[in-house]
């Protein structure tokens, strides 16, 4: 499972960076989103995958029975997703504003307008 996820993560990073190199700013944003996803998956995979054993304490015990999935990376990822959502919302507004002003999303054409 780790191998599959590692390939997926590598693919996401590669695709994300490729999209960021494109001239269209819409693709730039898509690239940023993919980088965020790749990072979240990386955290999940690197801190150890444990299937189908949530960190719950059985009735009558005081400690959970090992092995359990570590909840902390999931909390970290959740926070990162929320932050990423806010950032993407901002960047979408930013490109919308740019498109309104220039009627194009090609960064090269926009840069030529610079005074």
């Amino acid at each position, binding site marked *: 499972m780790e191998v599959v996820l590692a390939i997926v993560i590598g693919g996401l990073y590669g695709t994300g960076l490729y999209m*960021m190199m494109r001239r269209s*700013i819409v693709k*730039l944003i898509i690239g*940023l989103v993919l*980088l*965020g996803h*790749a*990072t979240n998956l*990386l*955290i999940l995979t*690197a*801190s*150890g995958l444990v299937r189908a054993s949530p960190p719950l304490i059985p009735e009558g015990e005081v400690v959970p029975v090992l092995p359990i999935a570590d909840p*902390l*990376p999931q909390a*970290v990822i959740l*926070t*990162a997703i929320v*932050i990423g959502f*806010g*950032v993407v919302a*901002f*960047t979408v507004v*930013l*490109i919308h*504003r*740019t498109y309104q*002003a*220039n009627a194009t999303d090609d*960064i090269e054409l*926009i*840069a030529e*307008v*610079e*005074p």
Partner: protein
Amino acid sequence: MNNVLVLPLIIPLVSAAIMLIFWRWRFIQHFFGILGPAGILISSIVLLNSVRQNGIQVDQIGSWPAPFGITLVADLFSAIMVLMTGLMGLAIAIFSLASIDPQRRLFGYYPLLNILLLGVSGAFLTGDIFNLYVWFEVMLIASFVLMALGGEQAQILGAIKYVTLNLLSSALFLAGVGLLYAAVGTLNMADLAIKLGEVEHPEYISALAMLFLVAFGIKAAMFPLFFWLPASYHTPPVPVSAIFAALLTKVGAYALIRVFTLLFTQEVFFTHTLILVLAGFTMVTGVLGAVAQFDFRRLLSFHIISQIGYLMMGLGLFTVHSLAGSVIFMVHVILAKSTLFLISGITHRLHGTFELKKLGGLYRSYPLLAFLFLIPALSLAGIPPLSGFFAKLALIQAGLAIEQYYIVATALGVSILTLFSMIKIWAEAFWKPLPAETSLLKSYLPAEAPSGAMHILVSPIIVLAAITVIVGLAAEPVFSLAFEAAEQLMNPAGYIQAVMGGNP
């Protein structure tokens, strides 16, 4: 519980919230816009005082013991940085009263400024590496909006570059945090420092350290990752440029100093030598960029990069003396750089341009402004008895003490080029007669600006320039404070003990 530590975070948060409720009330926006940074300043003075008297201050939020809860830590370095944040916030907020147009104010300029200061103070005070990421994001979101607020074409273009590179850096930082957790299973910085000292393969940790070096290097605008900075810092209104120049790259530099003194000290020869080499290149490329520029703010933007090189030089040399130099340099450069940006704002107000070729004659028409420009400019170049001289003296002495002659030679050479580019501004904007095509006294006052607008604009500059002089003249207490801060940085045992308590 230790409430002083929470105050620099609570005050700007609450004042931003109040301002958001009273969105359209000019008086409330102005009042809390000033009150927030003033609160940070006052509480940070109290904090610095208590850190000096009682050692490192720690607050475990919600009384969850470290490493399980969220920890706030203030050692001397953090406290000094929060103090500078409050001071800069206050100076910029006062300058903004007379220079931010009503349009930007109605779209939440002052709440955003407070949120920005909240993020910066949080980054300085947190003792948890994931929290550091969160505070970085708070700061970045506020800075993104401040950068784009107003929606001028140049601003939008600058914002796209700024946002993209900063988000890339955040993604790398987050990946580093995740891998660090995977390696040692904790995120609390003091706990990390203990566990990273015990790992079997320090070379993996050094590889991880490189990820952090790149992530923070982008934020601090280190060579070769600085290209976003001169492409964006000259686009927003002057107070925004000034606060960015004063604080944002310094947060990156602070994070580098923090992680490379506390966490990544396994293979000092490799990591810190690399930092030293990058520091040299950062100084040289920054100042060469500045020498080639003829736009007031672009020139200053390149200088920010060059100054970051000096900060990193102190970290790369990695002795108590050199880190003390970095601490003094940090204080000095925050003061000098923001003052210069504010002065560029006044010259723009007077003649309506940032082009040095079109400016002129300011020495004749505004001798006070010319005098105020000379103080930070000469301080930046390192002329005694101003603050910059002592900061550079400490760094160069530290370099000579451990026989790193190349970096010392580079630092001295870059100082001369810094002086050269400052003299260029002096000669172009202040000394030569005003070119005929620039109309004299073209006023750019916003319609509702108070009648004493010029006084409001000049007063923060006078205060900041005075502090630059005082830091230079009263070098002895500043030095002893910086040395205490550097001692704490070089001996993380005290930091770890303070955070982990009796249960390390």
